[in-house]
């Protein structure tokens, strides 16, 4: 028998708020978290726009040894996971005694690696690097740190799938619980924010250069969009078998009912209609829901010309023109490795508070986005079922369908 999989904990540390309360307020009010970062200009960036989150002070929460292996991805992920565990009523003692896994999405540690290499260049002696850097440098840094801090005993793997990492992490955790291989998995995504992390992406000319108007720069689906705005932070989604959740009387924020995935097998950066179409349809099939049962679509749309165009075409093809669509990246920028998880958190906040967050800066549609129902302002709406898309470089696609829990 397959398990039902429910969401029992959520946490967020993002540029539109450092916790669920702040983020809910930003989503309702269409608040942008984008800034102009002059340091990027000096460093040689084509665009100095970015989402911004500060490095959290973890000294009140963690020992020196626990903090030593942490750079931005793990620091941000600790904050979102701390919040998720708290609202899931989970603590270290419980996790130590009850098998719990962690599958976290992360796809870079550029800031940490470059700081380490700079030390070696200066000292010309690797034994003067210090003990923490190796644990900051490895791509599985979030997993190594959180599994140690929280004494996790279940599956422990990092999921790297470009900008779909966070979404796939939830999808893979969902499959493990559904099949009865895990009772509970901490899923999520983390994305560093520093000048070393995004330089090569900026160099592709993919970022918006509306630098005199940071809050208006990220404009998914809008006719006058000119590129994405990089961003970051971390989001955590704790998923669990329904049986386990009920047994420990855990809060239930939603139920994961569908996960679709595909690979384009085509261009390394260009989106692909067929790949997205297959991922969407797979999620609908697995969930056993028809397109008309979806009340809201949280689009991947990052504000690039070609990416938004393709996604609008696919949504129009599969869902038609009626179902409300918004891209929260209009406020957050593109949270990359984190985005697939954070957008589940944003959508859960909408579902549990009966509203759709606006796709801000959507002023004029183009020939493709006019064929779908992009929501440009806050809208009250009862949501029983939503779908969230995530697509990444290399042609990796992920679609998740979440329903309001009903016994």
């Amino acid at each position, binding site marked *: 028998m397959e398990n039902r999989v429910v969401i029992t904990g959520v946490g967020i540390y993002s540029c539109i708020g450092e916790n669920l309360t702040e983020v809910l307020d930003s989503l309702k009010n269409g608040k942008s978290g984008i800034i102009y970062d002059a340091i990027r200009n000096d460093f040689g960036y084509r665009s100095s726009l970015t989402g911004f989150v500060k490095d959290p002070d973890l000294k009140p929460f963690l020992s020196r040894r626990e903090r030593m292996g942490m750079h931005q991805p793990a620091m941000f992920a600790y904050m979102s996971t701390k919040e998720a565990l708290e609202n899931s009523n989970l603590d270290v003692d419980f996790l130590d005694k009850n098998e719990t896994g962690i599958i976290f999405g992360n796809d870079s540690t550029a800031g940490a690696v470059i700081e380490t290499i700079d030390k070696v260049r200066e000292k010309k002696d690797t034994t003067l690097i210090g*003990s923490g850097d190796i644990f900051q440098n490895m791509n599985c840094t979030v997993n190594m740190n959180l599994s140690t801090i929280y004494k996790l005993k279940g599956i422990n793997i990092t999921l790297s799938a470009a900008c779909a990492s966070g979404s796939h992490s939830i999808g893979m955790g969902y499959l493990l619980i559904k099949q009865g291989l895990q009772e509970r998995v901490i899923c999520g995504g983390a994305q560093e924010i520093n000048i070393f992390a995004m330089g090569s992406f900026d160099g592709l000319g993919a970022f918006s250069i509306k630098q005199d108007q940071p809050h208006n720069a990220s404009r998914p689906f809008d006719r006058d969009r000119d590129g994405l705005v990089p961003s970051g932070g971390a989001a955590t989604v704790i998923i669990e078998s329904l049986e386990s959740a009920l047994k420990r009387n855990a809060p239930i924020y939603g139920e994961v009912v569908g996960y679709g995935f595909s690979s384009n097998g085509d261009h390394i950066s260009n989106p692909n209609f067929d790949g997205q179409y297959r991922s969407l349809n797979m999620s609908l099939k697995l969930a056993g829901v028809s397109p008309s049962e979806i009340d809201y679509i949280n689009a991947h749309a990052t504000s690039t010309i070609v990416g938004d165009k393709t996604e609008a075409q696919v949504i129009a093809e599969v869902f038609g023109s009626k179902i409300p669509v918004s891209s929260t990246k209009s406020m957050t920028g593109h949270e990359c490795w984190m985005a697939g998880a954070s957008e589940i958190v944003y959508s859960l906040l909408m579902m549990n508070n009966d509203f759709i967050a606006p796709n801000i800066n959507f002023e004029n549609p183009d020939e493709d986005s006019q064929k779908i129902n992009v929501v440009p302002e806050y809208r009250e709406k009862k949501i029983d079922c939503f779908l969230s898309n995530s697509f990444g470089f290399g042609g990796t696609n992920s679609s998740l369908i979440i329903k309001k829990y009903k016994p």
Partner: protein
Amino acid sequence: MERSEIITITKKFLSEEFEVDIDTIKDNENLRETLDLDSLDYVDLVVLIEENLGFKPTAEDFKTVETFDDFYNLVEQKLMNV
């Protein structure tokens, strides 16, 4: 460098880095236990000594160090040879 200066500098960087009350660092107390050092912490201790006292100790050097007093002796000896 005078021994008193070595002690002042050492207490400062050890208490700050390993987050212990500076008053717990006493000459005859055990260094490893007072600072709660594990094998990874010794890697950091080497970095700290190089940054703050200007020489890089070896693993062999630490074999002679049990108390903070032993540590100050080691530093004096090393600085004499620099």
